[in-house]
């Protein structure tokens, strides 16, 4: 039977989960939403979207290198992302010192990593001499072909990324918002930045299995930026990020099943929609509160004698 989106949502959902491949796709979407959500939340906090974008284009060198080596494209992607993450981390430390490079300098380093990786991708492709298979699904994502084996790989990678991020969460946040004081407290600011990039690279590679390489940002940035717009409480915004990510991934995959278009399109659209709504809501809230009464600087501190 051909998939048909009916008015009865419960029936639509039960139709979705009748198929093993669709259950696998939804599970993969969930793993990816959680992993990319948490990694993306930290990425947004660190303002490292450019590094994240560079990691997402590693799909091309990764896939072409994998084709050349005769291994599955996903493995090439994981390896290319990890290598690029290490390279970006190294460009940051070329100048020495313990604190991060100024943003402009860091961006130049990242841009060069991106250019070098794309160049390598073209080289691998010429050496391979063939045409990359599954190009469209690599770029735009698919709900098809999430095998049990692939699902388990995703689960392992996702769990590893989350475990690493949980372990370094506090010093990483400290190093992100307050590098000087963090360094004075003995936090290894540079090293943590590199470890985070590596985890981010793996999260990006995992997420692209579902969203496609071009639209990986929809799960990486959308939910995290929406949540951070809505609340500045760290735990609440992290939980909200994961919840929004799950909604975006599942709605995108579900709608994609009933249509003829790639999953990544719907996931990206849902993600943008969520972000726009979050921004509108945040704007509405701050307007209703009026220009927030600046706390009078005259609020006397204990022992204050001059003001």
């Amino acid at each position: 039977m051909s998939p048909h989106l009916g008015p009865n949502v419960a029936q639509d959902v039960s139709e979705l989960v009748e198929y093993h491949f669709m259950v696998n796709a939804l599970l993969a979407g969930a793993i990816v939403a959680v992993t990319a959500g948490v990694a993306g939340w930290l990425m947004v906090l660190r303002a490292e979207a450019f590094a994240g974008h560079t990691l997402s284009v590693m799909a091309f060198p990764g896939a072409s290198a994998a084709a050349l080596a005769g291994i599955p494209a996903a493995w090439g992607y994981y390896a290319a992302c990890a290598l690029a993450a290490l390279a970006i981390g190294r460009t940051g430390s070329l100048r020495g010192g313990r604190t991060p490079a100024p943003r402009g300098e860091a961006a130049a380093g990242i841009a060069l990593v991106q250019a070098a990786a794309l160049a390598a991708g073209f080289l691998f492709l010429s050496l391979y001499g063939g045409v990359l298979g599954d190009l469209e699904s690599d770029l735009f994502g698919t709900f098809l072909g999430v095998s049990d084996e692939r699902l388990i790989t995703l689960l392992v990678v996702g769990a590893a990324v989350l475990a690493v991020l949980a372990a370094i969460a506090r010093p990483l946040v400290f190093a992100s918002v307050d590098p000087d004081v963090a360094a004075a407290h003995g936090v290894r600011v540079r090293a943590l930045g590199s470890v985070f990039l590596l985890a981010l690279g793996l999260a990006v590679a995992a997420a692209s299995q579902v969203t496609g390489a071009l639209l990986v940002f929809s799960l990486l940035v959308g939910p995290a930026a929406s949540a951070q717009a809505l609340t500045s409480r760290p735990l609440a915004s992290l939980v909200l990020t994961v919840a929004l990510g799950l909604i975006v991934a599942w709605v995108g995959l579900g709608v994609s099943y009933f249509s003829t278009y790639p999953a990544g399109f719907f996931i990206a659209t849902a993600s943008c929609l969520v972000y726009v709504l979050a921004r509108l809501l945040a704007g509405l809230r701050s307007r209703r509160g009026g220009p927030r009464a600046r706390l009078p600087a005259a609020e006397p501190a204990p022992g204050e004698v001059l003001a």
Partner: protein
Amino acid sequence: MSTSGATPAFELRAASVRLGGTTVWSELSASVARGEFVALLGANGSGKSTLLRVLLGALALSAGSADVLGAAPGRSARAVGYLPQRRAFDSGTRLRGRDIVRLGLDGDRYGLPLPGRRASAAARARVAEAIELVGASAYAGRAIGEASGGEQQRLLIAQALVRKPDLLLLDEPLDGLDLPSQAAVAALVAHISRSHGMAVLLVAHDVNPLLPYLDRVIYLAGGRAVEGTVEEVITAETLSELHGVPIEVLRASDGRLVVVGAPDPPAHHHDRHNRAGAGAAAHSGAHAH
């Protein structure tokens, strides 16, 4: 925290620092006793922040020795509170003031805080106490990026205080604040130093907001340092000798010191002095360098 103890909060003996082949200062000896409130003064580039980095253990001496709280610099990091020279937080930083203060307490720990009720309640209480102490309770729940410069500075002082340090190093905490905020933050730091017996070394551009509170000053110029009370150090003789050019020190009727002729770029904060009204005419030298 200990207020007694014969060991000074820090002591530098014949200390020298070279950075990139240039000697920043040499043969520098200075110390601050426990509970003392001392300002570190000097022109731009005289090595004030460098001295703080030495005390933090982030920079090694090329000669001489340094003790911080009776140990080598950096060894007693948990007992040293540090407020770096900085610009404001990005307005998009989506963390609350309270979270920034909390990072000062246990932000260097790996792993997630276990929801062990007692420990985390104690940590929250400690954070609330530090915020209360600086009078920031009313806005600690808002995103740090939304706070004004003065509010952010109070929260950052709370962050530096949250571990109840024995030595507080503040790098230009008054920079970028309007005059009332400068006065308020100076009073706050003095109050904390007195009430908690905490040694404070405060890097400043302008000594005037600090005048009512300072125990002593350390003045850096020309690779050397002079320490003593304000009356001893901020004098025409001492400063002329340090800088090697004639310098005049005038005292306004309200007690403010005006240093004339110091070889330093012109003051960049005229507007602040103008807003203050009194002393506006003396802007060109209303800071002690």
